[in-house]
């Protein structure tokens, strides 16, 4: 890796004759500042993911012990409810560490409950996996908020999670 900063990289590109729209620089700075706040090293993500799993398992155990989950449709409904809350939290503007951690735990617990509910309602080895796959794809599509809040024009293909799999042309 070279030690060029983003600024030096951009000025070298300008020097080589590539067109860099200056007007977008300030917005890019703001966006990157948010982004650097959001990204964490892998061990921190491992830690938060692990804690979220434990929290989700405790939550599910609580629901079973408190006799909230007594029929299959109810389990599915509660699972879906948790997933909806998780997506809403993850897409909301007031994202902080607590909200995202809560969303992660609720999302995990919701998926476990929804999958369990689906499995015991339909008891079908073809239909259930199919529904799970379709449901997870739908979840991936809606989970992240597209950065359409950027104050300048962006070709919005953020809501297409498979774009990296397609060959880029041009």
């Amino acid at each position, binding site marked *: 890796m*070279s030690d060029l*900063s983003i600024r030096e990289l951009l000025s070298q590109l300008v020097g080589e004759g590539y067109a860099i729209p200056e007007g977008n620089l300030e917005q890019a700075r703001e966006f990157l500042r948010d982004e650097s706040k959001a990204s*964490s090293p892998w061990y921190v993500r491992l830690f938060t993911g692990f804690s979220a799993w434990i929290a989700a398992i405790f939550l599910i155990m609580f629901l079973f012990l408190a006799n909230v989950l007594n029929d299959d449709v109810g389990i599915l409904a509660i699972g879906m409810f948790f997933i909806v809350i998780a997506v809403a939290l993850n897409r909301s503007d007031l994202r902080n560490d607590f909200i995202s951690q809560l969303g992660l735990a609720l999302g995990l617990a919701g998926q476990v409950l929804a999958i369990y509910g689906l499995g015991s309602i339909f008891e079908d080895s073809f239909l259930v996996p199919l529904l799970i796959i379709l449901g997870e794809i739908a979840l991936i599509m809606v989970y992240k908020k597209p950065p359409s809040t950027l104050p300048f024009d962006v070709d919005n293909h953020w809501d297409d999670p498979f774009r990296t799999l397609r060959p880029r042309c041009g």
Partner: protein
Amino acid sequence: MEGGADPLDTIPTKATILQLAEMKLLNSEALERALKISGVRPDRARWRGFLDSLLLVLAALFTVSGVFFFFAFNWASMHRFFKLGLLQAGIFVAVVPAARDKLERLTGKVALGVAALIVGALLAVYGQIYQTGADSYELFLYWALLIAGWVLISRFTPLWMIWIILLNLSLEFFWIQIVGDLDFRLNLLIFALNGGALLVWELADASGIEWLESRWSPRLLFLPAFGVLVEPTMEWTLFQELGYRSDPLLPVMVLLFIGTSAMVMYIYSQIRLDLFMLTVCAAGLMLIIDTWIARSLGTRGFEAATLLCMSALFIGEAALVVSLLRRVSRAWEARESG
């Protein structure tokens, strides 16, 4: 300016450069060029360097495992002098490039590493031929002692780590086979061994020895050193009132756990930044605190509520830890840019 350094002065990752392109700051040609200039997309020379080291290390590892399996498979059909001679010849063959390349280059270091590993094979074969009834800790201990000189001169991190693993194995087998009693004295010794190695490593690194720069080895050393403190502390939180365990060392381990946590958190947040150490330390503390809370709640008999509390507790604590880590990291950025 709030929030520390200007993000434009940071070194871009691949994700950052792709984001610049998403924001129409770079068109597709500029993106290609940016990936190349920043070194995110490796050029020919870097690919060559990478493949060189990769193939070298893989070749060394396959050669050594080939040697091990060769002896296991052809055991019956070779005379014992032939086996020992072959292994000694192997050591000699491996040492020659190490001596020729003067340990300045990776080839020399890897060759010395191969020789060090074959010494282990030689000891194992010797032990199989002459069944002396020796304990297996002796194999690891003698192995470690015999290669100690090579390790000292190698300036090669993986070889040092292998050596420390050998010492750990000797200690543990010695304890299991000779002492027999699995008590906290073993925890104390493992802590002393790995924690001591970590301390020496950091002190030597701080004094400017260049090849000690890599961070994975001190991090790897910290895991067993801290783990052997977490385990007794957890036992203490679970069983303190029941008098279940009356190991006289238990209070010592708990105090060591508290002292080590405090020291690690101070050193790696104030003297040098290492978020990995802080994360592991926080995870250990969280485990202890939550065990204590769960036990206190659980013994009073409201089980379902306890589970809900634990769930909320884990979410809250993880969020707290992440925001604290972020604060530490931002304070460092501000300190370095200001």
